[in-house]
């Protein structure tokens, strides 16, 4: 039994936030798609940094600054190992959104009005709007991969589309934040590579649940947010194949990223330095380092099996409730259930669920085009992670039934 090999009791104890009651009910946190909870070791790493090594990085000849820099750079190596890439292929950003903006800006000089940028209808706004800005600025065409009515991709149809479009860049998420659907990336990346299309993968949702081997996946760029993978807020990153990464136009300018500055002219350093100007989120990166340690210590097969088990359990229970429509693909999912109850407004359901201590998200989840595709204005989203339990699912289903009673 998966739940035996995976020690959920121990894991629960590592997450202090989860052990609280709200309004007399135990907290049931089903909003990991928005941000994950943090293990004690991550909180402690941050505290330890401020207590012992707080200093700016890279510029200091003194002990504190050296400690800070060592830890900061060790974190880069750690996340690189996690994704099986090289440390100098990782750029720290404040999150996935900034990483995507950095990319869209960085590619600007490589794109002309004859080029096409290909996105998909289920992307998060962070993987849409920067590309709209880029195509507006360059006169390039923004094109959209076909999505089936049930919000899954027909791979053959997509391969065909990619092959014919010969886009300059394909921007696609590894998993949908709204639905949890996992994209079957391998064949799409292969098709894109075959016609010389660069592939940008939005890994905000995939990085923790799917722990991708990026060298094997073969994408050119990959973005992630630490706060969705047990890490602190205000940290994220961009992976880029080194030559491609180094060829991007710098995004933010200022100290540290320069080589020389005169009042007339500046020259820039090589990647990753040239994309990291200003004082970074040092404490955040060091906290994230502890998060990667935590994740890496978990056996990924066990973790995924456990996540699938509670997901299947939740999906089954939810499906049994009359009047519930589920929009998520139940066969390929990171653990997210997007649904509605009859014509009730997601806002009402989420508000009532909160009364029962159940934290879910409601609304468009920063995916208005997907909402439009599904013909709804919003959904309720329950997103699970490996620290959720069967009891959480039971509490959620119970609370949902009670909430429905209140509405009916």
């Amino acid at each position: 039994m998966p739940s035996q090999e995976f020690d959920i009791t121990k894991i629960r104890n590592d997450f202090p936030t989860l052990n609280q009651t709200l309004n007399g009910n135990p907290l049931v946190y089903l909003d990991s798609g928005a941000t994950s909870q943090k293990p004690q070791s991550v909180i402690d790493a941050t505290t330890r940094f401020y207590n012992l090594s707080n200093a700016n990085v890279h510029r200091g000849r003194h002990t504190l600054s050296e400690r800070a820099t060592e830890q900061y750079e060790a974190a880069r190596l750690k996340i690189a190992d996690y994704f099986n890439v090289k440390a100098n292929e990782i750029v720290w950003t404040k999150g996935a959104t900034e990483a995507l903006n950095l990319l869209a800006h960085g590619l600007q000089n490589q794109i002309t009005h004859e080029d096409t940028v290909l996105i998909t209808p289920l992307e998060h706004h962070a993987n849409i709007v920067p590309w709209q800005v880029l195509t507006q600025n360059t006169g390039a065409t923004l094109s959209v991969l076909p999505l089936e009515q049930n919000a899954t991709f027909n791979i053959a149809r997509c391969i065909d589309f990619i092959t014919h479009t010969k886009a300059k860049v394909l921007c696609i998420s590894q998993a949908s934040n709204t639905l949890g659907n996992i994209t079957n990336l391998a064949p799409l990346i292969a098709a894109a590579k075959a016609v010389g299309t660069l592939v940008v993968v939005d890994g905000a949702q995939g990085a923790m649940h799917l722990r991708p081997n990026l060298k094997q996946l073969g994408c050119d760029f990959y973005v992630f947010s630490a706060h969705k993978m047990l890490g602190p807020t205000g940290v994220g990153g961009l992976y880029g194949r080194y030559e491609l990464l180094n060829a991007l136009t710098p995004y933010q300018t200022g100290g540290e990223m320069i080589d020389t500055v005169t009042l007339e002219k500046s020259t820039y350093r090589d990647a990753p330095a040239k994309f990291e100007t200003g004082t970074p989120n040092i404490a955040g990166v060091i906290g994230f380092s502890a998060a990667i340690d935590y994740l890496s210590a978990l056996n990924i097969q066990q973790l995924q099996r456990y996540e699938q088990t509670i997901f299947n359990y939740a999906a089954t229970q939810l499906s049994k409730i009359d009047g519930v429509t589920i929009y998520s693909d139940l066969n390929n999912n990171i653990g997210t259930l997007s649904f509605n109850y009859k014509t009730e407004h997601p806002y009402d359901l989420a508000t009532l669920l909160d009364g029962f201590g159940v934290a879910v998200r409601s609304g468009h989840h920063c995916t208005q085009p997907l909402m439009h595709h599904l013909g709804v204005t919003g959904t309720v989203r329950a997103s699970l992670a490996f620290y959720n339990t069967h009891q959480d699912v039971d509490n959620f289903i119970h609370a949902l039934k009670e909430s429905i009673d209140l509405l009916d």
Partner: protein
Amino acid sequence: MTNTFNSVIKTIQHAQSWQQKYREIMLLGKTLPALADVLKTDDALVPGCESKVWMFMEFDDSENRLVVIGDSDTRIVKGLLAIILALYNGLTPEEVVNINAYDEFEKLGLIKHLSASRGNGIKAMVEAIQSMAANKLN
């Protein structure tokens, strides 16, 4: 304070549980007549909300008393809207500026629905009413 508002207060304050409270709020919402669809224009939308809130307001010419009408696509927000309407409708600008919706929502145990984080439009509505009344007085 109007009579309508006093009776609203009573039902909500007598609620035995938070569930009961929400039930009363939603019932209140049901008593509010729906806005005609032609009035549900984008211009009438209170901006930046997850739930849609439409509202119109003015001080009537003859008596200088507030007339607010509104609607929402969610039940809870519509109920809260009903409370706001009961609180302010029919008041003169002087009376309006003297009524602090935050205090009243606090008393009703509903203060979190007026918080910055809710983004449900109720807070924006209160602010719009207050600033219209203040303008009238200047």
